[in-house]
């Protein structure tokens, strides 16, 4: 599903942030992406989200070399990738329901069509009672569940999560990773979850992609 071959990334004329990345991610797999701060986790996630192009090497996604794609095709491809951020990035002027429904609005679906799906998903993530609340009134855990619901509402094939447990307590962190695991198991989504919380990794049996000074090693 995802293949990196000798990929390097640098910003402008600066030093290489990512060096010689070569790996493959199979469909329906779950990987942790870890490493110390500044090791390049977010840059790798941005490459996977197709919001950056590699400085060198080849990135293949869904069987296509992303370096040869035009803007329209990149946009089509990006719609198969969901993203969850540490800082949630919900729109504060929209209700939880409206935030979660955004990807479907962007796809042009009418509200009458997506309302049952959004409601069902919000109930599944435990926000059924909070769907009309604004994000400013939600707790950290509720915000992150809303952000996850927004990332998966359009049924992406890949789900990326950038430190999704960074702003919640350890117990809630564990519950959130369980939620990702459930999405991986029930919907077959390919998940790459970036975190630097090592105790959290020990509780789950998923392979780890470890970045250190821009170099990647994978531990099964």
């Amino acid at each position, binding site marked *: 599903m995802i293949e990196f071959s000798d990929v390097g990334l640098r910003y402008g004329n600066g030093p290489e942030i990512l060096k010689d990345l070569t790996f493959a991610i199979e469909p329906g797999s779950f990987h942790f992406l870890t490493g110390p701060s500044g090791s390049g986790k977010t840059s790798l996630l941005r490459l996977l*989200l197709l919001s950056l192009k590699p400085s060198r090497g080849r990135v293949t996604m869904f069987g296509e070399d992303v370096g040869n794609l035009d803007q329209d095709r990149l*946009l089509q491809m*990006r719609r198969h990738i969901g993203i969850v951020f540490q800082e949630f990035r919900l*729109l504060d002027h929209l*209700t939880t329901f*409206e935030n979660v*429904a955004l990807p479907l609005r*962007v796809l042009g*679906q009418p509200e009458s069509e997506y309302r049952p799906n959004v409601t069902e998903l919000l109930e599944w993530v435990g926000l059924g009672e909070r769907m009309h609340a604004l994000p400013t009134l939600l707790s950290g855990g509720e915000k992150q569940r809303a952000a996850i619901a927004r990332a998966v509402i*359009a049924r992406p094939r890949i789900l990326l999560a950038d430190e999704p447990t960074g702003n919640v307590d350890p117990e809630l962190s564990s519950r959130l990773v369980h939620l990702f695991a459930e999405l991986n198991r029930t919907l077959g989504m390919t998940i790459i979850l970036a975190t630097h919380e090592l105790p959290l990794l020990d509780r789950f049996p998923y392979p780890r992609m470890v970045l250190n000074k821009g170099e990647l090693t994978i531990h099964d």
Partner: protein
Amino acid sequence: MIRQALSLLPRRGGAAPIVPEKSVAGRTLLLLITIMAFLSAVTLGGVMLVQKSAIAWSADVGRELTIQIRPVEGEVMDSNLRTAVSLAQSTPGVAGARALTLEESQALLAPWLGAGLDLSAIAIPRLIVVQLADPVEADIEQLQRNLQAVRGASLDTHAAWRQQLNTMAGTMVLSGLLVLSLIGVATVLAIIFATRGAMASNREIVDVLHFIGASNRFIAGEFQGRFLSIGLQGGLLGTVLAILFFALIGAAAGSVLPTEATAQVGVLFGQFLLGWDGIFGIALVIPVIAALTAITSRVTVRRYLSEAS
């Protein structure tokens, strides 16, 4: 009421606008567009008033000719006056002709010679006012030829004065249109700056929309909808204020200014009455400003997004 009317406008899918309706940039832009719409509507109204008055003046003056009889030694003025009046009345297309009395001539000369002067002792030119039934049908050349029989008679068709009047009115209309164009350019520039400001302050929304797979076209459409709404509100407010301004000026000209001043202002601008056609013309400012706002913001947003990506 404006909000209620705007809520009836079609909106892209979903109930809540993705771009927040209330923001500092939005309020600033609304105020700016209201001012621009007011200035545009006032300028347009002024141009229409001048043009209407110029057409009315030209039509009035065009329906009248003046025959001047200069005193000539050996000629009897009263006899020449009667002959000229008779010649004028017999000309095709003439509704009537009348010689100004000595008192009327005295009144005309009073500003220069002073009042109470006995003009019977002075030989002064006399005037005959000729009213035309139809300026197009009137045979002015025949009247001109016939008047050659009256010594000291000359015909003034006011052509030169009308020409000057038309030139002046045309200059004012052109100046007004130039001012309108400048206001338009200033509005476009202000919208560009306001749009870029709004984009910068809503950067988070743009980023999130990009991350969830929104195209630049979708994002531009969302911002365009927001700016169209601001343009309509600003255009409506500015135009209504301009119509109130004209109503107020019309009322003030009739009640505050002294009678002579009112008369002079009335001669220059009519009665400050725009009429339904004038109000309709001014109301066109609303869709024009709204369209200008929507198109400018769309182009600016598309450029901004292209630069950002």
